[in-house]
């Protein structure tokens, strides 16, 4: 259940309310829309730790 998968942030869908900010994350080429509500610092190219559609951490390189 607490399984979290790392993936690369490849695009950001900006929104004025951080609650609705999302991005596309590539998991080995498979894209999935992910909430960026908890990682306001995330930038394109970052590796994100994603759990149930939500990024929980920007992984250290």
């Amino acid at each position, binding site marked *: *259940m*607490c399984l979290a998968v790392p993936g690369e942030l490849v695009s950001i869908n900006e929104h004025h309310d951080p609650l609705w900010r999302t991005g596309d994350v590539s998991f080995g080429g498979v894209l999935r829309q992910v909430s960026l509500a*908890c*990682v306001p610092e995330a930038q394109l190219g970052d590796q994100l730790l994603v759990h*149930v*559609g*939500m990024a929980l*951490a920007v992984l*250290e390189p």
Partner: protein
Amino acid sequence: MSSSSPEQLLAEIRHHCTQSWTLMEVCGGQTHALLRHGIDQLLPAEIHLIHGPGCPVCVTASERIDQALELAARPEVILCSFGDMLRVPGRQGRNLLAVRAEGGDVRVVYSPLDVLAVAQQHPDRLVVFLAVGFETTAPATALLARRALLAGVPNLTLLVCHVRVPPVLHAMLNAPQCQVQGLLAAGNVCAVMGQAEYNALAAEHRRPIVVTGFSAMELLQGILQAVDQLERGAHRVENGYRRAAAEQGNHAAQALIQQVFHPIDCQWRGLGWIPGGGLALREPFASLAVERRVAPPVSAPASPEQAQGCISGLVLQGLARPSACPHFRRPCTPEQPLGAPMVSSEGACAAYYRYQR
């Protein structure tokens, strides 16, 4: 303390370990990874691993499963949850897959956030999200709740079963029969919550705690750091999962949890009543609670665990190995589970079944 290969880490563990130590990995994902990599068989015989209660599917109260079963059978309801929840038996052995086979509208979602669209597409149906998970998962449910109130989706409701890890660890470490000398904390829970609650646990119970990840290297690193502390008589929190878990955790995720939930005492399946062990919706989000929309079902009689001799309570407390259960493999299998730890991809019984321990 940086080694470049699993073999080097194993050699370091052997070098450090001069006596018998019992460690508990908290998270069921770690249990499966330890067995998948064969780490349990590669460690020196002096190190004993006890498998912790970190499997939300396993510890969700059977009363809540029965509530979900009753709701899912209603024609006006669409019940959404994570895939593992569909095979968890309620108190009479039935599960959500059986309800679905009888015509109930039970849907598997990847993310709690997907439930909003389901509710918007079916305004005439009552959409219930069976929300399980530890602090790792609670932020996603909290975000769903905030979005649901903002967007005004009156047919979306939550059956909240979220639980908190530190209170159950406190209860387990307080138990007189507890054999655990050191803890590998669940890395992704700490990625959200940080280390503060674990500093308090380590100090009060005088046990070392190492925040630990999920790869073979991270698991071995966690074990090495815990053994090293035990050999030195130390009992503090160390972070072996720095690439993901900051010491303070994730502030935005913690804020979401605090805005939407408050801690409550709650029942853990197989473990009993845990003070502060659960989360409930706080106002104004409590208006999303499914209990506010529908009358509660009548409660069912004794649990199947007791009725069928399932020892999952002992397994979840680390007091019995899954393979010590008389029902293990025959008749209890992941396809026909008697208890929740055989169901889940994080349950200890399922790990022993899959990796043939």
